[in-house]
């Protein structure tokens, strides 16, 4: 006999389990883990699961344990039945633990795991290097301090090229000079010589900052005394804005300043003689008079002054060849003038370039600082001119044009050396020569160089003493594609793709489909490995893993997920991010691990410009269906020169291989590129390119494209925004450009409409349209009271923001009364203004995002002195009579009726404003494959982070006290400001320094969207705005699922057989 109380623990356990599961399940279904529309479905699905379980249980009872469960409890074997239940439950537990392990809730448990579990990929860059200063004296870490065109000052590890520290200065704070003072401070001069900062060399902490007075624009110059002894504090001399300042290196204290604004004196060179406090300051007045001041650097007193007028005038190019001589080019660029200013005396010596070099043309002095030698570029050749003792010049050597040179560097025995790099085929040759004796080559190295890095732009050298006491050299070179490489001992020690710090346009492309025969990498090898792996994973979830284990788990996950494979995956997670950089280089980055799959420097067929600058990037050919065997390609639009009327260059690049298919010099300018919604038989998209003459040109130039285009000729409209004049024009096609050119792909246009904003009160600061490839799932929106609202979804809506001319400046410059912000929604086919909304006392900058039927924009409210975000939603009123949901469900609605911009539909707009506590750099919206998933706004904040904000927070239907029905619909009670939840930063604790843009693209999986942000840094992550409701994570083990099912079936079968036997024996008895 057994007490029935023995069932109690089982019941209690069951009760607790039930309590746990139902609460958790409900939480799960109705939290933001699932999209709202799926919550109830999921609940019923779980109910369905219960139903199925009941069926199975009754089947188990009837099929297996008939004999165990008898009328008389003592005759049967109820214990067997419970054992079976226990076995099944155990299996279930194992399976459940597995499922929950695999569910990545994006909430890592401990700081150790934080970085590794964060799925975002982050790459740090600095930009194109302008100056570099080596710091290798100490025995400790060897580093190089660089300043870049992206206003970054950074300290790099000389061994591996990693960033020790880095600071991104403000956008208007361009760095003019960088140097090291006192052996422990990095000194930067920025903002046209008006800001001087000192940074601590080891950790990058700012030590002091000094603002220098500047009265006028002039070139700026930083001069840090070279051999600073600790006891003698010579000041840093800075020239900028017409003033010469002496600043103490220790604390940034301004010691003295000298005003040169009155005479218009421009300092060219500051020579600090070692061991003396006298400095020589040489400069020009109105580029015709040379003046040399002798100034006591301690007090700022002018000891002596001497000026000589040079009648020819100077061109402004100067090279200082020794401590008391400079060489200047005169204004005709044909005479070299040697200016000696020894002891304050000025002496001129003129030498004609034609005397030095035959058939000379215009000369150019190259910038490097070489001792006693001058580098002059004449006739595309670099000529080295030695400056003799009495200012006599003689040519000593000449090099081909494509040579980059470094400054000279003191090496042993009081000699100086410099490096030169020139190209020869696919190799570059690095030579280090002694300045005094150009025949002596200290170092000659040839290095194989990638063709797609272009020419060498800059060279910086540094020497070190090898073990055999000889001099070794390392060279830091900056290439045409902005990449930074360190060369040492004939090899590239490290390289940094700094071009990616200046991305201008991004598109996302597919990877090739996995072909038959391409073997998938083996994930797990043996059973033992497999087991070990799973034990590790288990440890990870139970928080028992050591850091090594965590690393191992990560590596395993990486491997098993096949994230870095170069083929398309089922979920569309693996893609290529094609990024065009300012240097005109195209990069393809893999979304899986962020590596560069291929890169390509744009070439121009045009002889006059070898390197066009990249403007924009378009999907040219996206093959699917019938043209599957073609590789997709992108269209890169470039321009020869910076002017907008400069001729454009088109380049077609194969996405899979990174090879340029063709490139053409199109012979007209590029103002606007319009992808048309038509493709030809090879899936090439038709594009229209507008030029400055008001003509549009059709691409591709094939007769097929022309036929397609002529068929749709009447339906092609486009618009132009002339922001300076405040005019928006709508255009339609008119005819072929006959008469002017015989080009049949050129068309003239006619103006359809114009919207003119009064220039005295409104200035266009922002325009925006919807993304052309955005998918809208449903046009109807069901309200709480079974009401229908029809979204006004039109591809031809233009959002325009204007501001009073006074309010176009910075925030501090205008009062609330003077500024007003007006936004418009304009139909670009008819020019009809659908909506106008005015915000008094507000100003830009306006950052907006346009999706489906809504616009969200961010601007500054001067009255409240806070940033504001406003949402405008636009609904179609003309179909408002179709209020019946049943009509919609049964298809008896007129949704399929064509929408024409010409029919003047009545629209209804709703809007609401909220405060937002941060400045914004960019706003984007998530986009998914079918548009079902709820949307999130991605807000790039001033702190260079990306905040994901649910669209529900910017819903104009929010009210202070939503009704019960509205609450159920997911309407959030109205608050005056939008919440900034730290966990909602998709960048987590990372920063995308210098953030400029955010790109989103749908994955194949409906729940997921790709997010790519670029600035100085790059950041990529995958987001699931409603969590991944439609997929398991990458590392879900299907094997275990299968095994569990098989084991269950086997258990059922075995117990059934056993029970059969038992039943038989019972009957025989």
């Amino acid at each position, binding site marked *: 006999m057994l007490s029935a109380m023995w069932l109690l623990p089982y019941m209690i356990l069951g009760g607790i389990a039930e309590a746990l599961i139902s609460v958790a399940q409900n939480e799960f279904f109705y939290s933001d883990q699932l999209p709202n529309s799926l919550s109830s479905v999921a609940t019923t699905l779980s109910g369905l699961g219960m139903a199925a379980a009941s069926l199975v249980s009754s089947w188990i009872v009837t099929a297996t344990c008939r004999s165990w469960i008898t009328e008389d409890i003592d005759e049967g074997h109820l214990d067997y039945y419970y054992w079976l239940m226990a076995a099944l439950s155990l299996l279930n537990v194992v399976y459940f633990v597995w499922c929950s392990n695999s569910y990545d809730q994006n909430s890592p448990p401990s700081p150790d795991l934080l970085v590794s579990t964060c799925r975002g990929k982050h790459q740090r860059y600095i930009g194109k290097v302008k100056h570099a200063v080596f710091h290798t004296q100490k025995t400790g870490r060897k580093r190089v301090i660089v300043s870049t065109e992206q206003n970054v000052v950074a300290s790099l590890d000389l061994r591996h090229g990693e960033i020790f520290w880095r600071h991104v200065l403000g956008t208007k704070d361009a760095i003019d000079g960088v140097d090291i003072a006192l052996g422990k401070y990095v000194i930067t001069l920025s903002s046209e010589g008006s*800001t001087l900062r000192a940074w601590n060399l080891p950790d990058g902490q700012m030590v002091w900052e000094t603002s220098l007075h500047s009265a006028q624009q002039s070139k700026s110059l930083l001069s840090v005394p070279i051999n600073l002894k600790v006891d003698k504090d010579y000041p840093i001399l800075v020239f900028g804005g017409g003033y010469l300042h002496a600043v103490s290196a220790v604390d940034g204290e301004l010691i003295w300043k000298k005003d040169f604004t009155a005479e218009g004196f421009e300092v060219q060179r500051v020579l600090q003689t070692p061991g003396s406090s006298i400095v020589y300051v040489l400069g020009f007045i109105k580029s015709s008079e040379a003046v040399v001041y002798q100034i006591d650097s301690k007090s700022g007193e002018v000891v002596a002054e001497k000026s000589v007028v040079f009648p020819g005038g100077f061109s402004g190019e100067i090279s200082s060849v020794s401590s008391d001589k400079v060489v200047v080019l005169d204004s005709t660029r044909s005479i070299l003038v040697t200016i000696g200013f020894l002891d304050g005396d000025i002496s001129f010596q003129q030498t004609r370039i034609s005397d030095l070099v035959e058939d000379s043309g215009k000369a150019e002095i190259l910038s490097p600082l070489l001792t006693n030698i001058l580098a002059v570029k004449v006739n595309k050749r670099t000529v080295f001119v030695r400056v003799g003792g009495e200012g006599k010049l003689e040519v000593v050597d000449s090099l081909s044009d494509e040579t980059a040179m470094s400054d000279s560097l003191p090496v042993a025995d009081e000699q100086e050396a410099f490096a030169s790099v020139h190209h020869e085929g696919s190799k570059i040759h690095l030579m280090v020569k002694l300045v005094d004796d150009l025949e002596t080559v200290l170092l000659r190295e040839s290095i194989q160089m990638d063709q797609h890095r272009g020419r060498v732009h800059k060279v910086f050298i540094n020497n070190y003493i090898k073990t055999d006491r000889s001099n070794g050299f390392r060279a830091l070179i900056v290439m045409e594609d902005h990449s930074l490489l360190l060369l040492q001992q004939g090899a590239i020690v490290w390289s940094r793709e700094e071009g990616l710090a200046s991305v201008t346009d991004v598109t996302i492309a597919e990877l090739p489909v996995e072909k038959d025969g391409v073997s998938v990498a083996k994930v797990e090898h043996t059973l033992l490995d497999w087991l070990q792996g799973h034990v590790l994973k288990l440890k990870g979830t139970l928080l028992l893993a050591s850091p090594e284990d965590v690393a191992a788990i990560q590596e395993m996950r990486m491997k098993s997920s096949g994230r870095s494979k170069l083929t398309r995956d089922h979920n569309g997670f693996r893609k290529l991010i094609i990024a065009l950089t300012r240097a005109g280089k195209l990069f393809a980055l893999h979304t899986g691990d962020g590596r560069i799959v291929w890169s390509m420097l744009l070439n121009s067929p045009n002889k006059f410009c070898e390197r066009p600058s990249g403007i924009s990037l378009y999907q040219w050919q996206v093959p699917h269906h019938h043209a599957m065997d073609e590789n997709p390609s992108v269209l890169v639009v470039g321009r020869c020169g910076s002017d907008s009327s400069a001729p454009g260059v088109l380049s077609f690049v194969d996405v899979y291989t990174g090879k340029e298919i063709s490139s053409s010099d199109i012979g007209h300018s590029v103002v606007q590129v319009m992808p048309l919604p038509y493709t030809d038989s090879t899936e090439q998209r038709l594009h229209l390119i507008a030029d400055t003459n008001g003509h549009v040109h059709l691409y591709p130039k094939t007769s097929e494209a022309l036929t397609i285009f002529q068929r749709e000729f009447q339906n092609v409209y486009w618009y132009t925004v002339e922001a300076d004049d405040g005019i928006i024009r709508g255009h339609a096609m008119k005819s072929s450009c006959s008469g002017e050119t015989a080009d049949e792909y050129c068309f003239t246009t006619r103006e359809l409409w114009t919207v003119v904003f009064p220039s005295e009160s409104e200035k266009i600061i922002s325009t925006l349209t919807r993304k052309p490839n955005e998918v809208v799932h449903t046009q109807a929106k069901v309200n709480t009271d079974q009401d229908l609202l029809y979204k006004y979804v039109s591809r031809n809506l233009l959002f325009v923001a204007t501001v009073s001319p006074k309010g176009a400046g910075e925030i501090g410059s205008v009062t609330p009364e003077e500024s007003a912000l007006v936004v418009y929604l304009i139909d670009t086919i008819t020019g009809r203004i659908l909506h106008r909304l005015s915000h008094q006392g507000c100003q830009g900058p306006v950052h907006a995002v346009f999706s489906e039927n809504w616009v969200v924009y961010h601007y500054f409210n001067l009255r409240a002195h806070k940033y504001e975000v406003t949402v405008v939603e636009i609904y179609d009123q003309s179909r408002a009579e179709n209020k019946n949901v049943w009509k919609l469900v049964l298809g008896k609605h007129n949704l399929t009726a064509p929408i024409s911009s010409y029919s003047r539909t009545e629209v209804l707009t709703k809007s609401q404003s909220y405060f937002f506590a941060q400045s914004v750099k960019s706003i984007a919206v998530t986009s998914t494959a079918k548009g079902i998933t709820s949307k999130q706004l991605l807000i790039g904040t001033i702190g260079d982070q990306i905040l994901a904000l649910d669209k529900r927070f910017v819903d104009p239907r929010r009210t202070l006290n939503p009704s019960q029905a509205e609450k159920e619909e997911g309407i959030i009670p109205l608050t005056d400001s939008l919440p900034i939840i730290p966990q909602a930063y998709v960048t987590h*604790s990372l920063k995308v320094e210098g953030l400029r843009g955010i790109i989103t693209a749908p994955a194949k999986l409906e729940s997921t969207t790709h997010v790519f942000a670029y600035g100085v840094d790059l950041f990529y992550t995958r987001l699931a705005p409603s969590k991944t409701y439609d997929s398991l994570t990458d590392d879900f083990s299907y094997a275990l699922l299968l095994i569990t099912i098989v084991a269950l079936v086997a258990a059922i079968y075995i117990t059934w057989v056993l029970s059969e036997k038992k039943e038989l024996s019972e009957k025989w008895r």
Partner: protein
Amino acid sequence: MTPIIRSCPVLTFLVFQICLIFFTSTLPCSSGSEDSYTITGRVRIPPSNVIGHTAKFSNVKVILNGGQSVTFLRPDGYFTFHKVPAGTHLMEVSARGYFFSPVRVDVSARHHGKVQATLTETRRSLTELVLEPLKEEQYYEVREPFNILSLVKSPMGLMVGFMVVVVFLMPKLMENIDPEEMKQAQEEMRRQGVPSLSSLLPSAVASR
């Protein structure tokens, strides 16, 4: 005026001092072509014991007017904006791990660059420009530790508790039933084999 000054040299000295401070602070500004002033302030981050958050001043930026100018902190937490024109400005602090309220900064032209600061989020005005974070930011969700109490407090937990109570208390109630009636019921049970509702009901009726 003169007698007062003569009688009170300390005051003159003070006035002189104040003038000196005044002039030194405004001199570099007033010599420019337009009125521009210097804003000096300080960022103070309270020591934090959250792991992964080290208050490093080298990663803190102070941003004026949404990026018009950016400055960094000195080791002591002080920062300075130079050449700021008179007017109402907005200052933001970007520090990883902390949320700072934007600050409305009024630079008065009439009072020679006197600075008035107000936190825009809390509308609190600052007597001196010392900026402190409103709150710390935790970028990762912390998984809640397992808690027995929260389990019991959940509706299901309460239900389980109720059931436990019923399971243990009901037998006690049974004890209060009249022993004769009990015996009758037991007999009934023995006769019927498995007790069922239908068998119990008539007996109850019959007993009555």
